[in-house]
């Protein structure tokens, strides 16, 4: 059979070149703004960051001074979320990866996890207000905020941890069981250590999301302005994302320097967690021998 005329063939490759160039352009339109946003916030925020900014409470109706209570508040909330969500989330992932039979109940659990992941963050806020703040009487507090954020983070932790557990080869389990290990001993000594970096990556990414969220803590934990530091889990607290919201919409005449400064601290916080997760993942990948 005769080959297609070269003129047509060349045209096809011209179309391909143009097509690939268009795809690259679209990708750049997506990616370049991300770099610009990060660079802009760090560059404009850097001048505001000083020892005073990081270690002092706000003064003069938040127009001067620092953001220490907001930084600590976000740290406490993130820590509280981790303490509450990790034991539940990892255990649920172990159940799904190692114990759960292929049954209707297991499918229901998966549907429930998908549903949890899809619930809007402000609806979590409503739920937290209804259950933790009012019904259980925690009040607007770090505790109520942490519980709310923990339930929101749960689906992220469960699905990434399950994936990490499933990526451990089946032969590891078979060998351990054949040597007389019980199922739990196998999980604890063999499967969990191998899956740990993957689980850790998921936990960090989940907490990163929790640290940057505003809507779930709006009615459950956040205080508009609270210059003293929280002393108990039942205290309300300032938090970085909420503080950024407040000073960029609620306080007239706010110096833009402090707005960018707060945004930069928040960005360093979440970006730091993001980088940490990437490092944990790539180091584990490099070391893995299977």
């Amino acid at each position, binding site marked *: 059979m005769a080959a297609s005329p070269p003129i047509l063939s060349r045209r096809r490759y011209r179309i391909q070149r143009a097509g690939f160039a268009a795809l690259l352009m679209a990708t750049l339109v*997506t990616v370049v703004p991300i770099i610009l*946003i990060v660079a802009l916030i760090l560059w404009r925020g850097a001048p505001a960051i000083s020892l005073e900014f990081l270690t002092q409470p706000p003064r003069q109706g938040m127009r001067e001074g620092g953001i220490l209570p907001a930084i600590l508040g976000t740290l406490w909330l993130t820590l509280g979320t981790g303490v509450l969500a990790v034991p539940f989330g990892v255990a649920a992932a172990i159940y799904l990866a190692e*114990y759960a039979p292929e049954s209707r109940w297991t499918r229901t659990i998966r549907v429930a996890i998908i549903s949890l992941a*899809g619930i809007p*963050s402000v609806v979590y806020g409503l739920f937290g207000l209804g259950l933790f703040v009012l019904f259980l009487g925690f009040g607007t507090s770090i505790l109520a905020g942490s519980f709310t954020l923990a*339930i929101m983070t749960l689906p992220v932790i*469960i699905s990434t941890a399950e994936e990490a557990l499933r990526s451990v080869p089946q032969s590891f389990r078979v060998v351990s069981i054949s040597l007389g290990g019980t199922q739990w001993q196998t999980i604890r000594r063999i499967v969990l250590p191998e899956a740990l970096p993957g689980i850790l990556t998921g936990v960090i990414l989940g907490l990163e999301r929790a640290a940057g969220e505003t809507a779930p803590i709006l009615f459950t934990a956040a205080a508009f302005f609270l210059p003293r530091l929280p002393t108990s889990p039942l205290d309300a607290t300032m938090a970085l994302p909420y503080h950024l919201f407040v000073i*960029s919409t609620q306080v007239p005449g706010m110096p833009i320097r402090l707005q960018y400064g707060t945004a930069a601290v928040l960005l360093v916080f979440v970006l730091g967690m993001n980088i940490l997760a*990437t490092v944990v993942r790539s180091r584990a990948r490099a070391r893995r021998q299977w």
Partner: protein
Amino acid sequence: MRGIAWTEYLITRWIRVSGYSAILFVLLIFGFLLREGSPALVQIPPSSLLGVRWYPIEDHFGILPLLGGSVVVTIGAMLVGVPLGITTAVYIAEVSPRSVREILKPLVEVLAGLPSVMLGFLGIILLAPSLRRLLDLPTGLSALTGALLLGGIAIPTIVSVAEDALDAVPRTYREAAMALGATRWQTIWRVTLPAARSGVLTAVMLGIARVIGETMTVMMVTGNAPVMPSGLQSLFRPVRTMTATIAAEMGEVANGSVHYHALFLIGVTLFLISLVINLIAAAVVFRKQTRAERVLS
């Protein structure tokens, strides 16, 4: 030995209970939303609830303008997010060399990690003023500003799900197309993308769900005017979404008031909308699996 058996028993119990906890939490959330939201159905007459005015001070609790606001912003966001998200996914999965891919993927992940309040902040001080000047609008705080930013928020979701779907297309499909003389470009459009279409559809739906539920960015940049949107020009006017209404007003209402229950009722509506979208998306994935199993058997 007995000690070990006991701890093992307890731990196994704990694991099982945690496994089922997800079901408990979904029921708990829905239960509490209903408990606090359902009184609104009794307290507010249906004519007010389905009206076109949301003005709680004068007892007008029409949800329609808020629903309309959410719809307008979501459509706008999808017009931005779907083309960019899918082309980026295609570029990452099918065209880019491995080294470029290793840079692009973490960058998109960074976008997913940016707090929405930060995008709202940039929207207020950069995007809204530029759009106002560029398009000569009375205010930059409009549905358009919200749609542009939310399009960006939807992109990481769309990219990662669509890219997974493209990755899952067997290599043999591509090899067969190329062996028949198709160029890589033709293979992408006529073979790979059609083969991955259910996954791409899932990506778009999860993107929609992500955008409808987004709160802080919309509240900060859309101007918050609960006006019933009508036609294309409402894209250039202030709107107010369901999420922003809850976030903006819940802090000011008295617990147990009609307004309080009405806000929870909006929460129930949002919960149901996102539940339906997510379940449909999940069903598409499940169906694809069963079809693949059938083909393989």
